């Protein structure tokens, strides 16, 4: 994403590294910490001579505020019936991320002074904690209103009342949207395991990996050629979050096509609004027409954007539908790496001029433009996939590593959205929706998605591979 704000307390470091490279170093370092701790100090359950389970020693040291209903303190200490020291995990995440990010900040091209970075990071972390707290309220959580939305809103409130300048030197040093989002994406790469691709066999691949790219490309084409959207990056970000998997796909795609912060925010807002509606309407419609739960689950998994919302809609149809829906969505989640790489490659080779004409771009220029963090994402994914597939112990190690790394990745995304909110104003955000084209794009794209996914799900689960998915969840 574009991040052009010059900062006073960050000095230009001619020998410094680009944010993408720092993100790769940071992401790999954090993954190495999670994996190393699990490998060296992990608690192994042994039955006979076989290791049957591994858990990371960092698991209780990395967490986020939990769910709460009436008392927000439950977020930090659990309920009276089941008390939990959740706050320990929050402090642990703060220490790990604070140390790593502060240590990396002077290496950036626009080097951050650690003396300012650390207190600024602490303030941002406090705002991120408040965002998680708002997102954790039971009613809010039930509607899939993810922490990204609340982090954005918390940031917007701060940015549009006291302003970024209220943070002074600390803000200039620590508000690093790009760094947090790209480091989080490299870590997300470690969660993209290709062995999960065949979890439902060919039908799952057909619904998640054939329909999705068709919808993505068609929607983008529609936005460019028919709607003639002003911003191709906004078009791409909306097309990806609508066709792939909501917020996570929007984050990855926006970073890959260097979308503006307000474009990512608009795409996520659209996606979350429609998701909240679709997760209620789709299961009701499926029940009303008496559709088979396996088919209904596949349809839900392929169309509803957000992973959590897919599970909520799936369970409304029963366990079988839940299993199919969530597994289809999981397979679609794996596509995120391919999409990020494809979008980055396409964006570096396209060269649109003002009048929409394109010209060819040289190899050197392609490499210069290519967002390098995507390479870190892919490498993390390949390494973890190989380790996962190497042996039973390898898969247990990777799973235990993910249990911790996903927590740190979540905090990084949350920090990034707080930063985005602080640097945005309401007018910039409202401008994205002017003329209603993003809304039309989303609605048309989602309509195509709903029709094609239903057709493909029927073909895959009922015509070509009948019986697949039956009995799941029993």
């Amino acid at each position, binding site marked *: 994403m574009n991040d052009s704000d010059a900062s006073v307390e960050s000095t230009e470091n001619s020998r410094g590294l680009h944010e993408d490279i720092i993100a790769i170093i940071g992401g790999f370092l954090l993954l190495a910490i999670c994996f190393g701790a699990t490998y060296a100090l992990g608690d192994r359950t042994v039955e006979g001579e076989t290791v049957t389970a591994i858990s990371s020693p960092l698991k209780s040291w990395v967490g986020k505020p939990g769910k709460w209903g009436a008392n*927000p303190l439950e977020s930090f200490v659990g309920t009276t019936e089941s008390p939990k020291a959740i706050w320990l995990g929050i402090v642990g995440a703060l220490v790990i991320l604070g140390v790593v990010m502060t240590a990396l900040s002077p290496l950036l091209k626009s080097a951050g002074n650690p003396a300012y970075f650390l207190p600024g990071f602490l303030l941002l972390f406090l705002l991120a904690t408040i965002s998680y707290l708002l997102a954790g*309220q039971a009613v809010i959580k039930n509607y899939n209103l993810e922490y990204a939305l609340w982090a954005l809103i918390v940031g917007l409130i*701060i*940015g549009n009342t006291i*302003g970024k300048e209220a943070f002074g030197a600390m803000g200039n040093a620590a508000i690093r949207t790009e760094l947090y989002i790209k480091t989080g994406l490299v870590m997300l790469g470690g969660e993209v395991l290709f062995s999960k691709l065949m979890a439902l066999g060919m039908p799952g691949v057909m619904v998640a990996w054939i329909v999705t790219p068709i919808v993505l490309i068609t929607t983008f084409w529609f936005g460019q050629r028919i709607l003639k959207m002003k911003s191709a990056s906004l078009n791409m970000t909306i097309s990806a979050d609508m066709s792939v998997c909501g917020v996570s796909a929007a984050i990855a795609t926006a970073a890959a096509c260097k979308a503006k912060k307000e474009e990512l925010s608009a795409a996520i807002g659209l996606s979350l609004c429609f998701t909240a509606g679709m997760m209620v309407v789709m299961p009701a419609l499926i029940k009303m027409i008496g559709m088979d739960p396996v088919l209904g689950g596949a349809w839900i998994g392929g169309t509803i954007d957000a*992973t959590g919302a897919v*599970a909520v809609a799936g*369970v409304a149809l029963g366990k079988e539908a839940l299993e199919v829906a969530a597994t289809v969505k*999981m397979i679609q989640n794996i596509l995120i790496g391919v999409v990020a790489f494809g979008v980055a490659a396409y964006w570096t080779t396209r060269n649109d001029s003002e009048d929409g004409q394109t010209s060819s771009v040289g190899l050197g220029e392609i490499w210069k433009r290519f967002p390098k963090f995507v390479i870190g994402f892919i490498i993390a994914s390949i390494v973890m996939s190989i380790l996962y597939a190497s042996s039973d112990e390898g898969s247990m190690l990777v*799973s235990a590593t993910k249990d911790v790394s996903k927590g740190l990745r979540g905090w990084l995304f949350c920090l990034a959205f707080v930063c985005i909110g602080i640097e945005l104003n309401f007018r910039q955000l409202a401008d994205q929706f002017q003329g209603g084209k993003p809304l039309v794009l989303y609605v048309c794209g989602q309509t195509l998605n709903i029709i094609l996914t239903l057709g493909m799900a029927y073909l895959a689960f009922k015509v070509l591979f009948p019986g697949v998915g039956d009995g799941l969840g029993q």
Partner: protein
Amino acid sequence: MAWDSKPTGWLRLALVVLVVAGIWGLLLPRLAQTKWVREREALLKEHRIDPAAMFYTELEFLDDKAK
């Protein structure tokens, strides 16, 4: 950027915080006690579903099953 170095910026922030505290501290906790929300919560808990999951690794039941 709508920065305001004057106390009005902080005043506006305080007002927004008050509104947020009212909604999250009074309104939503009341809604959370309703039968519909409680039943829904119980169902999600039974199936170990995090409705706000952003990625499949955040869905406990799916991730455990895949291990």
